[in-house]
Protein backbone atom coordinates (compact mmCIF):
# COMPACT_ATOMS: atom_id res chain seq x y z
CA UNK A 1 0.00 0.00 0.00
CA UNK A 2 1.32 3.44 -0.78
CA UNK A 3 -0.03 6.92 -0.60
CA UNK A 4 -2.84 7.68 -2.99
CA UNK A 5 -3.82 11.20 -3.88
CA UNK A 6 -6.69 11.29 -6.28
CA UNK A 7 -7.34 8.11 -8.19
CA UNK A 8 -4.70 6.15 -9.96
CA UNK A 9 -5.27 5.84 -13.65
CA UNK A 10 -3.45 2.85 -14.97
CA UNK A 11 -3.86 2.12 -18.62
CA UNK A 12 -7.12 0.29 -18.45
CA UNK A 13 -8.62 2.33 -15.71
CA UNK A 14 -7.85 5.12 -18.12
CA UNK A 15 -10.04 3.46 -20.64
CA UNK A 16 -13.02 3.68 -18.39
CA UNK A 17 -12.27 7.11 -17.20
CA UNK A 18 -11.57 8.78 -20.48
CA UNK A 19 -14.76 7.32 -21.77
CA UNK A 20 -16.82 8.60 -18.94
CA UNK A 21 -15.11 11.93 -18.97
CA UNK A 22 -16.09 12.34 -22.56
CA UNK A 23 -19.67 11.72 -21.63
CA UNK A 24 -19.61 13.93 -18.58
CA UNK A 25 -18.64 16.87 -20.70
CA UNK A 26 -22.20 16.86 -21.95
CA UNK A 27 -23.17 18.25 -18.55
CA UNK A 28 -22.20 21.50 -16.93
CA UNK A 29 -18.62 21.09 -15.85
CA UNK A 30 -18.32 20.92 -12.11
CA UNK A 31 -15.34 22.79 -10.80
CA UNK A 32 -13.11 20.36 -8.98
CA UNK A 33 -12.89 21.55 -5.40
CA UNK A 34 -9.88 20.58 -3.38
CA UNK A 35 -12.10 19.06 -0.74
CA UNK A 36 -15.18 17.07 -1.60
CA UNK A 37 -16.99 16.09 1.57
CA UNK A 38 -20.08 14.70 -0.14
CA UNK A 39 -18.26 12.70 -2.77
CA UNK A 40 -20.33 14.07 -5.60
CA UNK A 41 -17.41 15.62 -7.45
CA UNK A 42 -15.13 12.71 -6.85
CA UNK A 43 -17.61 10.30 -8.33
CA UNK A 44 -18.23 12.52 -11.28
CA UNK A 45 -14.58 12.86 -12.08
CA UNK A 46 -13.62 9.31 -11.22
CA UNK A 47 -16.61 7.00 -11.62
CA UNK A 48 -14.47 3.98 -10.85
CA UNK A 49 -13.92 5.49 -7.40
CA UNK A 50 -17.16 3.88 -6.32
CA UNK A 51 -15.49 0.50 -6.73
CA UNK A 52 -12.56 1.59 -4.64
CA UNK A 53 -14.82 2.88 -1.89
CA UNK A 54 -16.62 -0.46 -1.63
CA UNK A 55 -13.30 -2.24 -1.63
CA UNK A 56 -11.67 -0.10 1.05
CA UNK A 57 -14.65 0.24 3.37
CA UNK A 58 -15.02 -3.52 3.57
CA UNK A 59 -11.30 -4.11 3.74
CA UNK A 60 -11.06 -1.62 6.61
CA UNK A 61 -13.86 -3.43 8.41
CA UNK A 62 -11.94 -6.68 8.02
CA UNK A 63 -8.81 -5.08 9.42
CA UNK A 64 -10.87 -3.72 12.28
CA UNK A 65 -12.06 -7.15 13.38
CA UNK A 66 -8.41 -8.12 13.78
CA UNK A 67 -8.66 -6.12 17.01
CA UNK A 68 -11.11 -8.72 18.23
CA UNK A 69 -8.77 -11.41 17.00
CA UNK A 70 -5.83 -9.96 18.90
CA UNK A 71 -7.99 -9.58 21.99
CA UNK A 72 -9.02 -13.24 21.92
CA UNK A 73 -5.55 -14.52 21.07
CA UNK A 74 -3.86 -12.48 23.79
CA UNK A 75 -6.52 -13.33 26.35
CA UNK A 76 -6.34 -17.00 25.50
CA UNK A 77 -2.57 -17.10 25.86
CA UNK A 78 -2.57 -15.30 29.23
CA UNK A 79 -3.94 -16.22 32.64
CA UNK A 80 -7.56 -15.78 33.67
CA UNK A 81 -6.60 -13.46 36.50
CA UNK A 82 -5.35 -10.77 34.09
CA UNK A 83 -7.99 -10.95 31.43
CA UNK A 84 -10.05 -7.92 32.39
CA UNK A 85 -6.88 -5.90 32.24
CA UNK A 86 -6.09 -7.26 28.79
CA UNK A 87 -9.56 -6.56 27.45
CA UNK A 88 -9.31 -3.02 28.78
CA UNK A 89 -5.97 -2.52 27.07
CA UNK A 90 -7.19 -4.01 23.80
CA UNK A 91 -10.26 -1.84 23.74
CA UNK A 92 -8.45 1.31 24.73
CA UNK A 93 -5.39 1.03 22.49
CA UNK A 94 -7.76 1.22 19.57
CA UNK A 95 -9.96 3.88 21.10
CA UNK A 96 -7.21 6.16 22.36
CA UNK A 97 -4.96 5.34 19.44
CA UNK A 98 -7.55 6.18 16.81
CA UNK A 99 -8.18 9.57 18.36
CA UNK A 100 -4.43 10.20 18.44
CA UNK A 101 -4.01 9.10 14.85
CA UNK A 102 -6.93 11.30 13.81
CA UNK A 103 -5.46 14.32 15.57
CA UNK A 104 -1.81 14.04 14.68
CA UNK A 105 -0.68 10.71 13.31
CA UNK A 106 -2.43 10.75 9.97
CA UNK A 107 -1.10 14.19 9.14
CA UNK A 108 2.45 13.17 10.05
CA UNK A 109 2.18 10.07 7.92
CA UNK A 110 0.30 11.19 4.82
CA UNK A 111 0.47 14.98 4.92
CA UNK A 112 2.59 16.86 2.42
CA UNK A 113 6.10 15.65 3.09
CA UNK A 114 8.82 17.86 4.49
CA UNK A 115 12.00 16.49 3.00
CA UNK A 116 10.82 12.91 3.08
CA UNK A 117 10.93 13.01 6.87
CA UNK A 118 7.43 13.80 8.01
CA UNK A 119 4.04 14.90 6.75
CA UNK A 120 2.74 18.30 7.68
CA UNK A 121 -0.88 18.64 6.67
CA UNK A 122 -4.29 17.17 7.37
CA UNK A 123 -4.45 17.61 11.13
CA UNK A 124 -7.80 16.47 12.52
CA UNK A 125 -8.88 15.65 8.94
CA UNK A 126 -10.26 19.14 8.82
CA UNK A 127 -10.26 21.90 6.22
CA UNK A 128 -8.98 20.58 2.89
CA UNK A 129 -8.94 17.10 4.35
CA UNK A 130 -12.69 17.00 4.92
CA UNK A 131 -12.89 15.04 1.71
CA UNK A 132 -14.27 11.60 0.95
CA UNK A 133 -10.97 10.35 -0.46
CA UNK A 134 -9.00 11.60 2.51
CA UNK A 135 -11.50 10.08 4.90
CA UNK A 136 -11.31 6.81 3.00
CA UNK A 137 -7.54 6.70 3.26
CA UNK A 138 -7.76 7.57 6.93
CA UNK A 139 -10.30 4.83 7.49
CA UNK A 140 -7.98 2.17 6.16
CA UNK A 141 -4.89 3.64 7.76
CA UNK A 142 -6.29 4.08 11.24
CA UNK A 143 -6.92 0.36 11.35
CA UNK A 144 -3.26 -0.24 10.56
CA UNK A 145 -2.05 2.16 13.21
CA UNK A 146 -4.23 0.45 15.78
CA UNK A 147 -2.94 -2.95 14.70
CA UNK A 148 0.62 -1.87 15.36
CA UNK A 149 -0.48 -0.54 18.74
CA UNK A 150 -2.29 -3.68 19.84
CA UNK A 151 0.58 -6.02 18.95
CA UNK A 152 2.53 -4.62 21.87
CA UNK A 153 -0.21 -5.58 24.35
CA UNK A 154 0.85 -9.21 24.14
CA UNK A 155 4.54 -8.61 24.83
CA UNK A 156 3.90 -6.48 27.91
CA UNK A 157 0.94 -8.51 29.16
CA UNK A 158 0.24 -9.46 32.76
CA UNK A 159 2.46 -6.85 34.40
CA UNK A 160 2.21 -3.38 32.85
CA UNK A 161 0.20 -0.66 34.57
CA UNK A 162 -2.88 0.40 32.67
CA UNK A 163 -1.97 4.06 32.76
CA UNK A 164 1.45 3.40 31.25
CA UNK A 165 -0.21 1.42 28.51
CA UNK A 166 -2.66 4.21 27.75
CA UNK A 167 0.16 6.73 27.41
CA UNK A 168 2.14 4.33 25.26
CA UNK A 169 -0.92 3.95 22.96
CA UNK A 170 -0.96 7.65 22.28
CA UNK A 171 2.73 7.81 21.46
CA UNK A 172 2.81 4.86 19.08
CA UNK A 173 -0.25 6.06 17.14
CA UNK A 174 0.72 9.73 17.12
CA UNK A 175 4.45 9.41 16.53
CA UNK A 176 6.31 6.11 16.29
CA UNK A 177 4.08 4.42 13.75
CA UNK A 178 3.23 7.43 11.55
CA UNK A 179 6.78 8.68 11.17
CA UNK A 180 8.17 5.35 10.07
CA UNK A 181 5.05 4.90 7.98
CA UNK A 182 5.74 8.21 6.26
CA UNK A 183 9.19 7.05 5.25
CA UNK A 184 7.81 3.95 3.53
CA UNK A 185 4.27 4.76 2.44
CA UNK A 186 4.02 8.53 2.70
CA UNK A 187 6.57 9.36 0.06
CA UNK A 188 9.44 9.47 2.55
CA UNK A 189 13.10 8.69 2.21
CA UNK A 190 13.01 4.92 2.58
CA UNK A 191 10.76 4.55 -0.43
CA UNK A 192 13.28 6.61 -2.35
CA UNK A 193 16.33 4.53 -1.52
CA UNK A 194 18.61 4.15 -4.52
CA UNK A 195 18.55 0.34 -4.42
CA UNK A 196 16.09 -1.73 -6.42
CA UNK A 197 12.88 0.25 -6.68
CA UNK A 198 13.50 1.69 -3.23
CA UNK A 199 12.37 0.06 0.00
CA UNK A 200 8.93 -1.51 -0.47
CA UNK A 201 6.53 -3.14 1.96
CA UNK A 202 3.24 -4.07 0.40
CA UNK A 203 0.96 -4.31 3.40
CA UNK A 204 3.19 -3.67 6.35
CA UNK A 205 5.41 -6.55 7.52
CA UNK A 206 7.73 -3.72 8.52
CA UNK A 207 5.50 -0.67 8.90
CA UNK A 208 2.95 -2.41 11.08
CA UNK A 209 4.26 -5.70 12.41
CA UNK A 210 7.94 -5.06 12.95
CA UNK A 211 7.12 -1.69 14.51
CA UNK A 212 4.70 -3.34 16.91
CA UNK A 213 6.98 -6.29 17.57
CA UNK A 214 10.07 -4.28 18.41
CA UNK A 215 8.32 -1.68 20.51
CA UNK A 216 6.94 -4.73 22.30
CA UNK A 217 10.44 -6.09 22.76
CA UNK A 218 11.47 -2.79 24.33
CA UNK A 219 8.47 -2.97 26.64
CA UNK A 220 9.20 -6.55 27.66
CA UNK A 221 12.81 -5.64 28.44
CA UNK A 222 12.02 -2.53 30.46
CA UNK A 223 9.35 -4.40 32.42
CA UNK A 224 11.37 -7.53 33.04
CA UNK A 225 9.89 -11.01 33.22
CA UNK A 226 6.71 -11.94 35.07
CA UNK A 227 7.08 -13.35 38.56
CA UNK A 228 7.53 -17.09 38.20
CA UNK A 229 8.62 -17.03 34.58
CA UNK A 230 12.26 -17.70 35.39
CA UNK A 231 13.45 -19.35 38.59
CA UNK A 232 16.50 -18.34 40.58
CA UNK A 233 18.68 -20.41 38.25
CA UNK A 234 17.20 -18.54 35.31
CA UNK A 235 15.42 -21.63 34.05
CA UNK A 236 12.25 -20.66 32.18
CA UNK A 237 8.94 -21.97 33.51
CA UNK A 238 5.88 -22.29 31.36
CA UNK A 239 2.94 -20.09 32.29
CA UNK A 240 0.12 -21.55 30.22
CA UNK A 241 -2.66 -19.38 28.87
CA UNK A 242 -6.15 -19.83 30.15
CA UNK A 243 -8.16 -20.72 27.05
CA UNK A 244 -7.09 -22.54 23.92
CA UNK A 245 -10.53 -22.09 22.38
CA UNK A 246 -10.29 -18.31 22.62
CA UNK A 247 -6.71 -18.41 21.35
CA UNK A 248 -7.77 -20.49 18.35
CA UNK A 249 -10.73 -18.23 17.72
CA UNK A 250 -8.38 -15.27 17.81
CA UNK A 251 -6.19 -16.84 15.15
CA UNK A 252 -9.12 -17.60 12.87
CA UNK A 253 -10.40 -14.04 13.23
CA UNK A 254 -6.94 -12.59 12.57
CA UNK A 255 -6.49 -14.75 9.50
CA UNK A 256 -9.92 -13.64 8.26
CA UNK A 257 -9.10 -9.98 8.81
CA UNK A 258 -5.79 -10.41 7.05
CA UNK A 259 -7.59 -10.72 3.72
CA UNK A 260 -8.62 -7.12 4.21
CA UNK A 261 -5.17 -6.20 5.46
CA UNK A 262 -3.24 -7.58 2.50
CA UNK A 263 -5.68 -7.53 -0.40
CA UNK A 264 -7.11 -4.19 0.70
CA UNK A 265 -3.64 -2.69 0.56
CA UNK A 266 -3.99 -2.53 -3.22
CA UNK A 267 -6.16 0.47 -2.25
CA UNK A 268 -7.86 0.08 -5.62
CA UNK A 269 -10.41 -2.38 -6.89
CA UNK A 270 -8.85 -2.14 -10.33
CA UNK A 271 -5.76 -4.01 -9.17
CA UNK A 272 -6.79 -7.56 -9.93
CA UNK A 273 -3.55 -8.72 -8.38
CA UNK A 274 -5.71 -8.84 -5.25
CA UNK A 275 -6.51 -12.45 -6.11
CA UNK A 276 -2.85 -13.42 -6.08
CA UNK A 277 -2.40 -11.50 -2.85
CA UNK A 278 -5.26 -13.29 -1.15
CA UNK A 279 -4.05 -16.70 -2.31
CA UNK A 280 -0.53 -15.98 -1.12
CA UNK A 281 -1.94 -14.89 2.22
CA UNK A 282 -3.80 -18.17 2.52
CA UNK A 283 -0.87 -20.34 1.54
CA UNK A 284 1.68 -18.62 3.76
CA UNK A 285 -0.56 -18.88 6.81
CA UNK A 286 -1.17 -22.56 6.13
CA UNK A 287 2.45 -23.23 5.60
CA UNK A 288 3.42 -21.26 8.72
CA UNK A 289 1.10 -23.40 10.81
CA UNK A 290 2.30 -26.67 9.27
CA UNK A 291 5.99 -25.93 9.55
CA UNK A 292 5.90 -24.50 13.06
CA UNK A 293 4.10 -27.67 14.11
CA UNK A 294 6.67 -29.86 12.37
CA UNK A 295 9.49 -27.93 14.00
CA UNK A 296 8.13 -28.01 17.53
CA UNK A 297 7.20 -31.68 17.17
CA UNK A 298 10.72 -32.45 16.03
CA UNK A 299 12.11 -30.72 19.09
CA UNK A 300 9.65 -31.75 21.80
CA UNK A 301 7.61 -34.65 20.34
CA UNK A 302 4.41 -32.83 21.26
CA UNK A 303 1.73 -31.48 18.94
CA UNK A 304 1.87 -28.10 20.60
CA UNK A 305 -1.24 -26.14 19.62
CA UNK A 306 0.04 -22.83 20.99
CA UNK A 307 3.01 -23.01 18.70
CA UNK A 308 0.95 -24.00 15.67
CA UNK A 309 -1.38 -21.05 16.29
CA UNK A 310 1.63 -18.73 16.56
CA UNK A 311 2.94 -20.32 13.37
CA UNK A 312 -0.13 -19.41 11.36
CA UNK A 313 0.17 -15.79 12.42
CA UNK A 314 3.90 -15.88 11.73
CA UNK A 315 3.18 -16.99 8.18
CA UNK A 316 0.72 -14.15 7.79
CA UNK A 317 3.21 -11.59 9.07
CA UNK A 318 5.90 -12.97 6.78
CA UNK A 319 3.77 -12.73 3.64
CA UNK A 320 2.47 -9.24 4.44
CA UNK A 321 5.29 -7.36 2.74
CA UNK A 322 5.82 -9.67 -0.25
CA UNK A 323 2.19 -10.73 -0.82
CA UNK A 324 1.78 -8.81 -4.07
CA UNK A 325 5.11 -9.62 -5.62
CA UNK A 326 5.47 -13.38 -5.29
CA UNK A 327 3.95 -16.55 -6.68
CA UNK A 328 2.05 -19.25 -4.77
CA UNK A 329 4.94 -21.63 -4.22
CA UNK A 330 7.08 -18.77 -2.90
CA UNK A 331 4.33 -17.87 -0.45
CA UNK A 332 4.53 -21.42 0.85
CA UNK A 333 8.29 -21.17 1.28
CA UNK A 334 7.99 -17.78 2.98
CA UNK A 335 5.36 -19.18 5.36
CA UNK A 336 7.47 -22.23 6.10
CA UNK A 337 10.48 -20.14 7.04
CA UNK A 338 8.21 -17.92 9.16
CA UNK A 339 6.98 -21.03 10.96
CA UNK A 340 10.55 -22.05 11.75
CA UNK A 341 11.49 -18.53 12.83
CA UNK A 342 8.66 -18.34 15.31
CA UNK A 343 9.63 -21.62 16.95
CA UNK A 344 13.27 -20.64 17.25
CA UNK A 345 12.29 -17.15 18.37
CA UNK A 346 9.98 -18.26 21.15
CA UNK A 347 12.46 -20.83 22.45
CA UNK A 348 15.35 -18.40 22.01
CA UNK A 349 13.80 -15.49 23.87
CA UNK A 350 13.00 -17.90 26.70
CA UNK A 351 16.64 -18.89 26.76
CA UNK A 352 17.92 -15.30 26.93
CA UNK A 353 15.33 -14.57 29.65
CA UNK A 354 13.10 -12.18 27.77
CA UNK A 355 9.52 -12.78 28.83
CA UNK A 356 7.11 -12.25 25.96
CA UNK A 357 3.89 -13.89 27.18
CA UNK A 358 2.27 -14.39 23.78
CA UNK A 359 5.31 -14.56 21.54
CA UNK A 360 4.60 -11.17 19.95
CA UNK A 361 8.23 -10.31 19.31
CA UNK A 362 8.90 -13.56 17.49
CA UNK A 363 5.65 -13.50 15.56
CA UNK A 364 5.55 -9.84 14.57
CA UNK A 365 9.07 -8.56 15.09
CA UNK A 366 11.28 -11.30 13.69
CA UNK A 367 8.83 -12.25 10.99
CA UNK A 368 8.23 -8.64 10.09
CA UNK A 369 11.93 -8.46 9.23
CA UNK A 370 11.72 -11.77 7.39
CA UNK A 371 8.81 -10.49 5.34
CA UNK A 372 10.80 -7.42 4.27
CA UNK A 373 13.78 -9.52 3.25
CA UNK A 374 11.59 -12.04 1.46
CA UNK A 375 10.58 -9.34 -1.03
CA UNK A 376 14.23 -8.93 -1.95
CA UNK A 377 14.53 -12.66 -2.48
CA UNK A 378 11.31 -13.87 -4.04
CA UNK A 379 9.79 -10.91 -5.94
CA UNK A 380 9.26 -12.35 -9.39
CA UNK A 381 8.96 -9.25 -11.51
CA UNK A 382 5.33 -9.75 -12.41
CA UNK A 383 4.04 -6.76 -10.46
CA UNK A 384 5.08 -3.15 -10.18
CA UNK A 385 5.25 -0.38 -7.63
CA UNK A 386 2.09 -1.09 -5.63
CA UNK A 387 0.29 -1.21 -9.01
CA UNK A 388 0.50 -3.08 -12.28
CA UNK A 389 2.69 -0.26 -13.50
CA UNK A 390 6.46 -0.40 -13.48
CA UNK A 391 9.11 -0.39 -12.35
CA UNK A 392 8.63 -4.06 -11.59
CA UNK A 393 9.91 -5.39 -8.29
CA UNK A 394 12.44 -8.16 -8.84
CA UNK A 395 14.29 -10.11 -6.18
CA UNK A 396 17.57 -11.93 -6.06
CA UNK A 397 16.19 -15.34 -7.01
CA UNK A 398 14.54 -13.96 -10.13
CA UNK A 399 17.65 -12.32 -11.47
CA UNK A 400 16.92 -8.92 -10.04
CA UNK A 401 20.34 -8.78 -8.48
CA UNK A 402 21.05 -7.80 -4.93
CA UNK A 403 19.62 -4.25 -5.20
CA UNK A 404 16.14 -4.92 -3.92
CA UNK A 405 17.46 -7.10 -1.13
CA UNK A 406 19.72 -4.26 -0.03
CA UNK A 407 16.80 -1.82 -0.04
CA UNK A 408 14.83 -4.27 2.05
CA UNK A 409 17.69 -4.84 4.47
CA UNK A 410 18.14 -1.11 4.98
CA UNK A 411 14.45 -0.74 5.75
CA UNK A 412 14.63 -3.70 8.11
CA UNK A 413 17.57 -2.21 9.96
CA UNK A 414 15.84 1.15 10.20
CA UNK A 415 12.60 -0.29 11.51
CA UNK A 416 14.47 -2.24 14.18
CA UNK A 417 16.51 0.73 15.33
CA UNK A 418 13.57 3.12 15.20
CA UNK A 419 10.96 0.95 16.89
CA UNK A 420 13.20 -0.70 19.44
CA UNK A 421 15.10 2.51 20.17
CA UNK A 422 12.10 4.75 20.55
CA UNK A 423 10.33 1.98 22.43
CA UNK A 424 13.16 1.85 24.96
CA UNK A 425 13.18 5.62 25.35
CA UNK A 426 9.41 5.73 25.69
CA UNK A 427 9.07 3.00 28.29
CA UNK A 428 12.06 4.23 30.30
CA UNK A 429 10.57 7.70 30.30
CA UNK A 430 7.18 6.43 31.38
CA UNK A 431 8.92 4.36 34.04
CA UNK A 432 10.32 7.53 35.53
CA UNK A 433 7.20 9.63 35.04
CA UNK A 434 4.80 7.11 36.55
CA UNK A 435 7.18 5.85 39.23
CA UNK A 436 7.30 2.49 37.59
CA UNK A 437 5.36 1.10 34.66
CA UNK A 438 5.05 -2.23 36.39
CA UNK A 439 2.37 -3.14 38.92
CA UNK A 440 3.35 -4.06 42.48
CA UNK A 441 4.38 -7.71 42.98
CA UNK A 442 1.39 -8.39 45.21
CA UNK A 443 -0.96 -7.09 42.51
CA UNK A 444 0.81 -9.17 39.90
CA UNK A 445 0.37 -12.30 42.00
CA UNK A 446 -3.26 -11.61 42.75
CA UNK A 447 -3.87 -10.68 39.15
CA UNK A 448 -4.25 -7.24 37.67
CA UNK A 449 -8.02 -7.50 37.47
CA UNK A 450 -8.83 -7.40 41.14
CA UNK A 451 -6.79 -4.30 41.83
CA UNK A 452 -7.06 -1.58 39.24
CA UNK A 453 -10.21 -2.85 37.57
CA UNK A 454 -12.06 -3.89 40.65
CA UNK A 455 -13.41 -7.01 39.12
CA UNK A 456 -12.54 -10.38 37.75
CA UNK A 457 -13.24 -11.81 34.33
CA UNK A 458 -15.00 -14.99 35.39
CA UNK A 459 -16.86 -14.47 38.67
CA UNK A 460 -19.00 -17.59 38.20
CA UNK A 461 -16.01 -19.89 37.93
CA UNK A 462 -13.38 -20.94 40.39
CA UNK A 463 -10.18 -19.68 38.87
CA UNK A 464 -7.00 -21.39 39.92
CA UNK A 465 -3.56 -20.19 39.23
CA UNK A 466 -1.94 -23.26 37.85
CA UNK A 467 1.78 -22.49 38.17
CA UNK A 468 1.88 -22.11 42.00
CA UNK A 469 0.43 -25.60 42.16
CA UNK A 470 3.20 -27.34 40.29
Amino acid at each position, binding site marked *: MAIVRGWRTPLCGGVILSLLFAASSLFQPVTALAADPSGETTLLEHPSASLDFIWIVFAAALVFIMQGGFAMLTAGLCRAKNVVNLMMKNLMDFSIGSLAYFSVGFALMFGATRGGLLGTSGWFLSGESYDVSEYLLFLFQVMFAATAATIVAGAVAERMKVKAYFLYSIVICALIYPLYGHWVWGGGWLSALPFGVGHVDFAGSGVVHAVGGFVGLAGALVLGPRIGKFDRQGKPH*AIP*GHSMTLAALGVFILWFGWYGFNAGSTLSALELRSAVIAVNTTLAASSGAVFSLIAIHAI*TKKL*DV*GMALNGAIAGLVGITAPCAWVEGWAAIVIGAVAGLIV*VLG*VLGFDRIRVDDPVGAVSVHGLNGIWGLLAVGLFADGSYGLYTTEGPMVVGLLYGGGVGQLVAQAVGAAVVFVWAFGLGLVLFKLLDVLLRGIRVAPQEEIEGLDVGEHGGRAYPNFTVVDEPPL*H
Partner: protein
Amino acid sequence: MKKIEAIIRPERVSVVKEALELLGYPGMTLTEVKGHGKQKGFVQQWRGSQYRIEFLPKVKLELVVENGEAVKPVVEAIVQHARTGEAGDGKIFIYPVEEVVRIRTGERGTEAV
Protein backbone atom coordinates in the same frame (compact mmCIF):
# COMPACT_ATOMS: atom_id res chain seq x y z
CA MET B 1 -20.77 -42.49 64.12
CA LYS B 2 -17.91 -42.53 61.67
CA LYS B 3 -16.91 -40.57 58.63
CA ILE B 4 -15.45 -42.52 55.77
CA GLU B 5 -13.43 -40.28 53.51
CA ALA B 6 -12.18 -41.80 50.29
CA ILE B 7 -9.86 -40.09 47.84
CA ILE B 8 -10.54 -41.83 44.52
CA ARG B 9 -10.04 -41.50 40.79
CA PRO B 10 -12.65 -39.23 39.18
CA GLU B 11 -13.55 -41.86 36.61
CA ARG B 12 -14.43 -44.42 39.36
CA VAL B 13 -16.97 -42.22 41.08
CA SER B 14 -20.05 -43.50 39.30
CA VAL B 15 -19.41 -47.18 39.96
CA VAL B 16 -18.46 -46.57 43.58
CA LYS B 17 -21.60 -44.53 44.03
CA GLU B 18 -23.78 -47.29 42.60
CA ALA B 19 -22.16 -49.85 44.87
CA LEU B 20 -22.75 -47.71 47.94
CA GLU B 21 -26.37 -47.16 47.04
CA LEU B 22 -26.84 -50.91 46.68
CA LEU B 23 -25.40 -51.27 50.18
CA GLY B 24 -28.03 -48.82 51.38
CA TYR B 25 -25.91 -45.69 51.74
CA PRO B 26 -27.31 -43.10 49.37
CA GLY B 27 -26.14 -40.05 51.30
CA MET B 28 -22.72 -38.79 50.37
CA THR B 29 -20.80 -35.66 49.55
CA LEU B 30 -18.25 -35.26 46.78
CA THR B 31 -15.50 -32.69 46.38
CA GLU B 32 -13.14 -32.11 43.47
CA VAL B 33 -9.65 -32.21 44.97
CA LYS B 34 -6.11 -32.54 43.70
CA GLY B 35 -3.78 -35.13 45.08
CA HIS B 36 -0.18 -36.08 45.26
CA GLY B 37 1.20 -39.37 46.44
CA LYS B 38 2.97 -42.37 44.97
CA GLN B 39 1.50 -41.63 41.61
CA LYS B 40 3.81 -39.45 39.57
CA GLY B 41 2.54 -36.34 37.87
CA PHE B 42 3.22 -35.74 34.22
CA VAL B 43 4.97 -33.30 31.97
CA GLN B 44 2.99 -30.79 29.96
CA GLN B 45 4.09 -28.35 27.33
CA TRP B 46 3.31 -24.72 26.64
CA ARG B 47 4.53 -23.17 23.43
CA GLY B 48 7.64 -25.30 23.43
CA SER B 49 8.62 -25.15 27.09
CA GLN B 50 7.77 -27.89 29.49
CA TYR B 51 6.28 -27.97 32.94
CA ARG B 52 5.22 -30.65 35.35
CA ILE B 53 1.73 -31.18 36.67
CA GLU B 54 2.32 -32.65 40.12
CA PHE B 55 -1.16 -32.70 41.55
CA LEU B 56 -3.64 -34.88 39.78
CA PRO B 57 -7.40 -34.51 39.91
CA LYS B 58 -9.11 -36.77 42.42
CA VAL B 59 -12.53 -36.88 43.97
CA LYS B 60 -13.01 -36.91 47.73
CA LEU B 61 -16.04 -38.94 48.69
CA GLU B 62 -17.34 -38.37 52.21
CA LEU B 63 -19.89 -40.63 53.80
CA VAL B 64 -20.97 -40.57 57.39
CA VAL B 65 -22.30 -43.89 58.69
CA GLU B 66 -24.29 -44.61 61.82
CA ASN B 67 -21.82 -46.89 63.58
CA GLY B 68 -18.52 -48.71 63.48
CA GLU B 69 -20.02 -51.88 62.05
CA ALA B 70 -21.16 -50.12 58.95
CA VAL B 71 -17.60 -49.09 58.21
CA LYS B 72 -16.36 -52.47 57.05
CA PRO B 73 -18.77 -53.18 54.21
CA VAL B 74 -18.55 -49.61 53.00
CA VAL B 75 -14.76 -49.64 52.96
CA GLU B 76 -14.78 -52.97 51.17
CA ALA B 77 -17.21 -51.73 48.58
CA ILE B 78 -15.09 -48.67 47.93
CA VAL B 79 -11.85 -50.63 47.72
CA GLN B 80 -13.41 -53.13 45.37
CA HIS B 81 -14.90 -50.60 42.98
CA ALA B 82 -12.34 -47.81 43.08
CA ARG B 83 -9.29 -50.02 42.58
CA THR B 84 -7.44 -50.27 39.30
CA GLY B 85 -4.24 -51.66 40.78
CA GLU B 86 -2.12 -48.78 39.51
CA ALA B 87 -0.50 -46.01 41.52
CA GLY B 88 -3.00 -43.27 42.18
CA ASP B 89 -5.92 -45.39 43.31
CA GLY B 90 -6.15 -43.30 46.45
CA LYS B 91 -6.84 -43.84 50.13
CA ILE B 92 -9.63 -44.16 52.62
CA PHE B 93 -9.53 -42.43 55.99
CA ILE B 94 -11.90 -43.14 58.88
CA TYR B 95 -12.69 -40.41 61.41
CA PRO B 96 -14.79 -40.32 64.55
CA VAL B 97 -17.94 -38.21 64.31
CA GLU B 98 -19.50 -36.91 67.48
CA GLU B 99 -22.86 -35.77 66.31
CA VAL B 100 -25.01 -35.48 63.23
CA VAL B 101 -27.91 -33.10 62.66
CA ARG B 102 -30.35 -33.21 59.75
CA ILE B 103 -31.02 -29.59 58.91
CA ARG B 104 -34.46 -30.16 57.41
CA THR B 105 -35.93 -31.75 60.54
CA GLY B 106 -33.49 -30.93 63.29
CA GLU B 107 -33.17 -34.69 64.05
CA ARG B 108 -29.94 -35.69 65.71
CA GLY B 109 -27.74 -38.73 66.13
CA THR B 110 -28.00 -41.94 64.18
CA GLU B 111 -31.47 -41.12 62.93
CA ALA B 112 -30.08 -38.11 61.20
CA VAL B 113 -27.43 -39.98 59.24
